[in-house]
């Protein structure tokens, strides 16, 4: 432990210093999530016009696309913390990975569920073994596998290591999901938003989708912060600072 008082980027990498910071930040992200989702929902239903081809069914994409983005992005962040945890053996990184997985799994499920409900009226089927759909389903299994593996091993350090290896191997699935619509042109259409060309959708639709995505982003951060605080308390229960936090004299 360093005794110097000067600012360090590693200052908040200790569970003890991060726990109160997470507690202070969490309500702000939660409030932002509520505001952004409310604005996003308003645009989705009252500002964005009816789609010429899909009618009102297209309004599902305002949650489908942001949820699908989050499902992939959370996995990347989780993979990053797993890698950091494996290399540097830092406790907080493994706690982050554990805290992110359930939220990522939920967004993956939402992406699949809303995709099915969008697919039925527009494609005529709830599900096909299309490259994008199949790889997104594999992502759900990766999240569930990660959580199950971590829960199945009693020794916390070994559980973290095993989970991290599984998560890191699974990262290969993310580019497969993302580029699946280009590599295999099965059924799912290409990206509606691209860095290279103008978006293939009306401006209000795009803005609604981006605001919903930001709202989901803030929600995920708020949920992960709340969960990482629980994980920190559980795993650090033998430390004096947690005892002090719980009002226990040592």
């Amino acid at each position, binding site marked *: 432990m360093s005794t110097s008082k000067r600012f360090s980027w590693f200052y908040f990498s200790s569970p003890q210093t991060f726990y109160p910071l997470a507690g202070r930040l969490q309500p702000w992200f939660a409030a932002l999530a509520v505001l952004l989702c409310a604005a996003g929902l308003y645009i989705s239903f009252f500002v964005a016009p009816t789609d010429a081809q899909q009618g009102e*069914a297209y309004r599902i994409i305002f*949650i489908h696309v942001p949820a699908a983005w989050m499902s992939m992005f959370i996995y990347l962040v989780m993979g990053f913390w797993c890698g950091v945890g494996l290399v540097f053996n830092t406790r907080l990184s493994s706690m982050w990975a554990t805290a992110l997985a359930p939220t990522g799994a939920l967004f993956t499920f939402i992406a699949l569920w809303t995709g099915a*409900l*969008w697919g039925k009226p527009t494609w005529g089927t709830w599900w096909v073994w299309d490259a994008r759909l199949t790889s997104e389903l594999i992502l759900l299994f990766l999240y569930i596998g990660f959580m199950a593996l971590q829960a199945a091993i009693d020794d916390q350090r070994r559980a973290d290591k095993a989970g991290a290896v599984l998560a890191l191997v699974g990262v290969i699935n993310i580019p497969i999901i993302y580029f699946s619509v280009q590599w295999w042109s099965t059924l799912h259409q290409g990206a509606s938003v691209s860095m290279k060309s103008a978006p293939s959708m009306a401006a209000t639709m795009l803005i609604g989708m981006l605001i919903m995505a930001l709202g989901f982003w803030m929600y995920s951060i708020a949920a992960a912060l709340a969960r990482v605080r*629980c994980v920190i308390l559980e795993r650090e229960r033998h430390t004096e600072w947690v005892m002090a936090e719980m009002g226990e004299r040592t």
Partner: protein
Amino acid sequence: MNWQSWQEFLTMGGYGLYVWGSYVVTLVILAAEIVALVMRRRGVIASLTKYYAARRRNHEAKA
């Protein structure tokens, strides 16, 4: 404004089941996660309080 009446808003041009099926399930999932997080925090605090109390009794018994 897209909707002339509540009826129109709810039927979503014939796609009501799909659109509301998506939004309601998403809302239920996120609400359930929030409830689960609140309950988990309460559960952690309760179990730690019990754990420390048991440990303290153990220490006192030894002393």
